[in-house]
């Protein structure tokens, strides 16, 4: 379980209610620019609000709820908060 808890994965794998720390962001300058200005920077704490395994998801970052398409969310790399 411990190994799984600390695993680095794309944001789409995080379950609702789960928290994760952002470690990286892949993608073009436009996408990176868009996401960083909304608060997605490395080290920030993210909370998954809604993720039904398909369709867009809602994630809370810096007290803001942001809806992301799955394609966009796949570009955000996070580390699960194993505690």
């Amino acid at each position, binding site marked *: 379980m411990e190994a799984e808890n600390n695993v680095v994965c794309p944001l789409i794998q995080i379950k609702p209610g789960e928290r994760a720390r952002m470690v990286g962001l892949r993608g073009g*300058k436009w996408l990176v620019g868009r996401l960083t200005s909304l608060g997605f920077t490395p080290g920030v704490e993210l909370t998954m609000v809604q993720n039904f395994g398909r369709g867009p998801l809602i994630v809370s970052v*810096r*007290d803001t709820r*942001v809806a992301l398409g799955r394609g966009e969310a796949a570009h955000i790399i996070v580390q699960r908060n194993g505690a």
Partner: protein
Amino acid sequence: MTESALNSLTDSAAHPLARHETPLIALAGQPNMGKSTLFNLLTGLNQHVGNWPGKTVERREGTFSLDSTPVRIVDLPGTYSLTANSPEEVIAREFILREQPDVVVAVVSAANLERSLYLVAELISLPSPLVVALNMVDVAEHEGLHVDVDILQTALGVPVVPMVATRAQGVRELLEVIRQVLNGERVLMPRVPEIRSDHRQALQDISRLISGHVPPPYPTEWVALKLLEGDSELTKMMQEILPAEKWQAVHQVLLNHDDAQMAVASGRYEWVGRMIRAAVARPPIGQISVTERLDRWAAHPLWGLIFLGLVLGAVFWVTFTVGSPIQNWLETYLIGGLISWADVLLRNAPFWVHSLVVDGILGGVGSVLTFLPILAIFFAVFGLLEDIGYMARAAYVMDNFMHLMGLHGKSFLPLFLGFGCNVPAVIGSRVIDSEQARLLTILVTPFMPCTARMAVVAFIAAAFFGPYATLVSWGFVLLSLLMLVLVGTLLNRVIFKGQRSAFIMEMPLYHLPNWRTIGLLVWQRSLAFIQKAGTTILFLSVIIWVLSVLPNGDLNSSILARIGHWVEPIGRMMGLDWRLTVALLTSFMAKENAIATLGVVFGNSQGVGLAQILTSTFSHASALAFLSATMLFIPCAATMAVIHQETGSWRWTVLNILLMLVVSFAVSSAVYWIAVALRV
């Protein structure tokens, strides 16, 4: 930023570079921070809505008086940052750098301080003096967040004014601070964020390389920072300006620091974090907010869709139950009254003057204007849903469905607006951030059944199908939506090669409606509609009228009738005779004209209602074909005008018209022959 940059910026901020004769204030802020509410509060109806030159971005400017001197205020587009991710961001920063406003007011939300200060971190690095309007302190207090204004203001080095714009609290204090800054009574010592330490050297290197080459009004340090951020506009500009070997050197530095974009953003958030830690007392986390509770339903993939369906049903119910009687009343008493008044007044005028006024202007523009109440109610309900924050949820739950067409949820908002009128819908496509998705949305917008088309359907369906009229009407709405999806999917495959655009959208907190904002929105949209009616529609009404009276003053032998006869062979394939074909053609002017034209064509047969004449003249199959054609026919003149304005291209406009022609012809022919085969 380096020490020297900090000093020079502080200097310029303390001594504004240019004092405008009439003081100029720029209002900046991220979306959903209450910026528009504040703008409306300050200017009231003293505002002008236009476009930024050469851009399809709304520009709002207004005036108000401060100590009995007039002040100009410009509402900059809402942006999350000042990097060239979108035209809005470029407009905002170019305005501040070029127009050098005497004060920039940054609207931030106390309930969302961390993210909203990000833009402040950018604004504070620009030369214009900055004042921070700390809005929504009531929402923050409600959530247990307390912001210490004095500490925040000391930490930022610029004035911070707490306020609740929706209740007009703190406005007087804000104006007083603006006055002090304008009069130089308040010295600002802005604390500018620094880049993360591992990129400081890179920033200095680039600054040194471009120094002396940066054209005014851009500050050198700022350009260097934007180059590190990978800003597309400024990269292009400097690449053109710099000598080749210098650009090579800059390019090399940028290559060595390909993570600089994130480092700059992180640097700003570190700065923001310091401000917040100093000034904000945070409550223990764990309480569930109202927004979270509502979203469990409104944003749920299943319940959310059902909820949206109920909301849509309610919107139409309210719009038509309240609006239709008013429209009928206006049609009968106002337009009818005006016509009989004109009859009396123009008794002795030449025949053509009488006909121009009664048939051309009152019959054309007049009947279009009777739709205003229906539209105003629709705009109000739509504005209410938008203002309380629901429309973002509607966009979210519709995202999956919109993906069928390669669009995403945001396109749902303008399309929905299209149910009222296609004109604001085409303009509303500006909320979509990708150019391609926006174009596709515009191209499918004319398939949205607007209230004018629904009026035609309601009239014809009631005449021909009696008890089944409602069912038939809904059928035609579904037919239009089906065609919208089919055409959208096809266009996306063929023209845009199935590309998908990114879906990134803030879900704002729900809040109570602000009636002032909604009222102004309804007012502005209605005004735009009246202006269109007074210009484009008036012009076309007169042209159609001319065609219908020349050369003999009789419709049945007029040019219009000849055109009708000429294209009748095409009409026949859809089961339409020349009269229905002419009615369809005149619907180009305004959709509901179809009925008016039929009224004129059958005008001779007196004493019998139009509905009765129609049912005794045409078959049910022809009626169905005529309705399909009307629903899907080329966009009305006003819509076409805005399609051209918003796409900035005749090519797309013409393509759109051809597309609609083909679709309406194909579908209504199919409907006609199927109806004939089934002996409807």
